């Protein structure tokens, strides 16, 4: 078992970036090359993992040879696999982009170890099968993210990311207390065993409810659910572009993934419609408020950050709809839609931030009102913004279009039509903020002579954006397939 286990894609996904982190720390002069190598290897492992899950269904792995109660449990079901695949491809894109982004030696040498650690944390979070490992990965992610975010070193970035770090710690501690309560009651940390325990013990309602509150509230803080998003815009807007991309596209998504896991897998028996309404309501406000603030943002990256606040809101809308939908194809559709929204946003937001970074580097600033010349000079970059922007709005043929379609369909079918109004308003506001940027690309500045000016930076941005629009929108069937293969694992 253990020999085979070490080369299992589940393990490799976590081990490779860790190994890479160690290597780049040990050999800082080679950090870019080693970093890229680790990135490619990790992404390959993630693809291999996806292929395995595609063929075999949900994977389980107990590391260390101990029994289920104690072992480090790894697990990859459809949701996790889809997110891992998304995260790793996005991370690969970010890595390529980052390899040309930093020029200052100190930054280059700090970036790669932290980045690979963050990556390991991400994969760990998606794949961990027990609450404690989830906690460790959560902390790893939080610390690495805050450190990366502060990398630019300017005052605003440091202040914002210090706040982010503290928020993250507070959330983690809250989560840990919840874990402690659950362990008190059930004596296990394994997700599967706990789920069974909670389902069988309605009498432990108070403990369950308290644990859930602590964990979900802690995570909601880290997931920046309105009004707990206060830390996000400054932190994401002031980080270096590749870091912003990772933070907005991946880190927040990973935390949401954990909430979803808890909500659907663990606490499903005790979460009623009422409880689901609260996050959804906050999500709805997040959509409107986040989009509005994005529209009013003066800087491109701040706009993108607020857009993340809004986009996270969409994901929370799914909770009451899931609560109202009995298991069956309709619920599968809903889960797929949720996943599709998350994945699409991952690709799109990463592409957006990378492109924004390019604009910022080129113009020397990212004030939207003064971007005219730059936007027109960089057609490929502007295209990336346009494509990812349409995915953010939810225009066809992006993945989020299908997500929103199914979301609205479910809202109407379950009688919760008010979410349709929210989604519509959000889309309108999103159009407004996206096109506010794009309209800068049409000016009287000289014609750009070629499409791509800086391939290493523009190709990743454009590719990510393109995936969010064309691939996910026109071929989202695999998401269902992945879900179907692991239908047993999710909430049902």
């Amino acid at each position, binding site marked *: 078992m253990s020999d085979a286990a070490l080369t299992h894609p589940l393990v490799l996904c976590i081990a490779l970036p860790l190994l890479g982190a160690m290597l780049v720390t040990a050999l800082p002069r080679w950090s870019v090359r080693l970093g890229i190598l680790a990135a490619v290897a990790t992404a390959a492992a993630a693809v291999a993992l996806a292929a395995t899950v595609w063929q075999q269904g949900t994977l389980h792995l107990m590391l260390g040879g101990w029994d289920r109660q104690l072992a480090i449990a790894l697990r990859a079901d459809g949701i996790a696999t889809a997110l891992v695949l998304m995260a790793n491809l996005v991370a690969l894109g970010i890595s390529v982009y980052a390899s040309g982004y930093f020029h200052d030696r100190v930054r280059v040498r700090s970036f790669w170890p932290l980045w690979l650690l963050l990556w390991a944390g991400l994969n760990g979070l998606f794949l961990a099968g027990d609450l404690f490992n989830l906690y460790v990965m959560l902390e790893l992610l939080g610390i690495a993210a805050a450190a990366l975010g502060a990398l630019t070193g300017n005052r605003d970035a440091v202040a914002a990311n210090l706040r982010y770090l503290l928020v993250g710690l507070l959330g983690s501690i809250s989560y840990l207390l919840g874990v402690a309560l659950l362990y008190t009651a059930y004596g296990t940390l394994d997700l599967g065993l706990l789920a069974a325990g909670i389902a069988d013990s309605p009498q432990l309602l108070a403990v369950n409810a308290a644990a859930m509150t602590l964990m979900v509230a802690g995570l909601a803080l880290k997931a920046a659910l309105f009004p707990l998003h206060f830390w996000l815009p400054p932190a994401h807007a002031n980080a270096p572009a590749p870091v912003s991309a990772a933070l907005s596209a991946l880190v927040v998504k990973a935390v949401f993934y954990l909430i979803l896991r808890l909500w659907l897998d663990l606490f499903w028996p005790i979460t009623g419609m009422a409880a689901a309404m609260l996050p959804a309501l906050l999500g709805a406000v997040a959509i409107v408020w986040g989009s509005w603030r994005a529209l009013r943002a003066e800087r491109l990256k701040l706009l993108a950050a607020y857009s993340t606040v809004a986009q996270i809101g969409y994901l929370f809308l799914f909770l009451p709809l899931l609560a109202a939908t009995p298991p069956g*194809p309709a619920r599968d*559709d809903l889960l*797929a839609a949720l996943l*599709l929204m998350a994945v699409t946003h991952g690709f799109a937001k990463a592409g957006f931030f990378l492109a924004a970074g390019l604009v910022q580097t080129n113009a020397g600033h990212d004030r939207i009102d003064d971007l005219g010349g730059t936007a*027109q000079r960089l*057609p490929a970059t502007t*295209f990336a913004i346009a494509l990812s922007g*349409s995915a953010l*709005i939810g*225009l*066809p*043929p992006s993945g989020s*279009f*299908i997500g*929103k*379609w*199914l979301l*609205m*369909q479910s809202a*109407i*079918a379950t009688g919760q039509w008010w979410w*349709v109004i929210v989604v*519509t308003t959000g*889309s*309108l506001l999103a*159009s*407004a903020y996206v*096109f506010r940027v*794009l*309209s800068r690309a*049409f*000016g*009287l*500045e*000289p*014609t*750009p*002579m*070629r*499409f*791509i000016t800086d391939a290493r930076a523009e190709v990743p941005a454009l590719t990510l954006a393109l995936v969010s629009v064309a691939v996910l*929108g*026109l*071929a*989202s*069937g695999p*998401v*269902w397939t992945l879900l179907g293969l692991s239908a047993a694992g999710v909430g049902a």
Partner: protein
Amino acid sequence: MSWDYAALLPGAIVVSSLLPGVFIFLLDEESHVLRTVLNLFGAVAKLVLVGLLIYGVWLGQVFETRIAIAPGLTLVLNADALSVLFVTLSTVLWLVTTVYAIGYLEHSTNRSRFFGFFSLCVSATVGIALSGNLLTFVIFYEVLTLATYPLVAHRGTPEATRGAKIYLAYTLSGGLLLLVGAVWLRTLTGPVDFVEGGMLGDLSPDLHGQLVVIFALLLAGLGVKAALVPLHGWLPQSMVAPAPVSSLLHAVAVVKAGAFGIVRVVYDVYGVTLASQLGLLTVLGVLASFTIVYGSVLALTQDGLKKRLAYSTVSQVSYIALGTSLLGPVATVGGLVHLVHQGIMKITLFFCAGNYAETLGVAKVSQMDGIGRRMPLTTLAFTVGALGMIGLPPIAGFVSKWYLGLGGVEAGQHWVLVILASSTLLNAGYFLPILYRAWFRPLPAEWPNEHHFGTRFETMHALLWPPVITAVFCLLAGLLAAAPFSPLEWARLIAEREYGL
């Protein structure tokens, strides 16, 4: 899905302009020749494919491309008689417009961007035409919005960006309403396929209330592009676009997409019978009639030639909606045939307006004195288009008007004649003074901004011949209206199928 010829052709028709479009984006700005080759290749290839399609449909072959984008959500492209009508219109006019645009933008900037989006725009239009279900329609409808926005904003002047923003605000809001309507309808029925005669007939009467609301949503969404008053505000504003774009927006792509959508929803989703039972046709008829008159009244007051034409479009496109709103095959023929007729007439007018602006710098009606003597061919084409718009025989516009009027009377809605009569008079009111100036007033001593292109003709070839050709189309569509394969005959075929005759 099987990948045989019949399953590939509709998809190939969409892709035939999409792929060149993508390559054009990637081209360097200086690659004039390659870009022109790609443009023309796309246009001609599409024309050939559409030719194959017409032939196949005529033989009774069924063409359908299906791509499952998600379980239960399928992109369907197929060709029924109605699609063929719109596809042919777009493809033919696209070829003409491409030639025109190549000439028009000869020395302009950002051509790769322009022609890239131009191709996307046509791909989306053709996609709309071939959509086999509401989902597909919605997707291409939105893509069309996105593809046309950069074209409207192309000039980059403050007015252009402003016009483009207004365009976007209207069309995206409309698109959302359409989306909500489509989603809602889907929750009631499952996939909403376009079926001749409608697919909601069997629905329980309990749901009729919801159907009315859904229709309102769909109509609001489609009405924006079709420029139904009061949703028409974007259209005159988007006149800042270059002339080929205005032509495309007003004649082929955008407004037609809206009107075509209304036709689809009424005939192939609701079915005329149900739509009439629910009172929806009356609403549509009233809106269309109001738009027809209102648009023309506003056109009377415009001095800007393109603005006048834009308001004229507002008015004329509603003929299609009017035809749709009248129960009975004759009116249907009138509405459908106007889809084509308005297209060829209006594109002629816009080409001519572009020629005046490019050649002489004339953009206002008040500057057009004697212009017929400086640009006789262009002005002849303009005259044919304008008289056609008024509905004078034997030009195409009369054919539409005749069928609309007859359809109205057959449906017992005699007021339609009043609308048509007022529209005729109003159209005459804003077109004939232009013709009077152009042909009967003396020339000015100097034109605002005159160019010579070194040809023996009044302007460069690429600008001159497209309007002449479309003007000939206008005449032929009228003179040969009863001949086989004329737009009228196709419209008759469609109407027969929709009414199961």
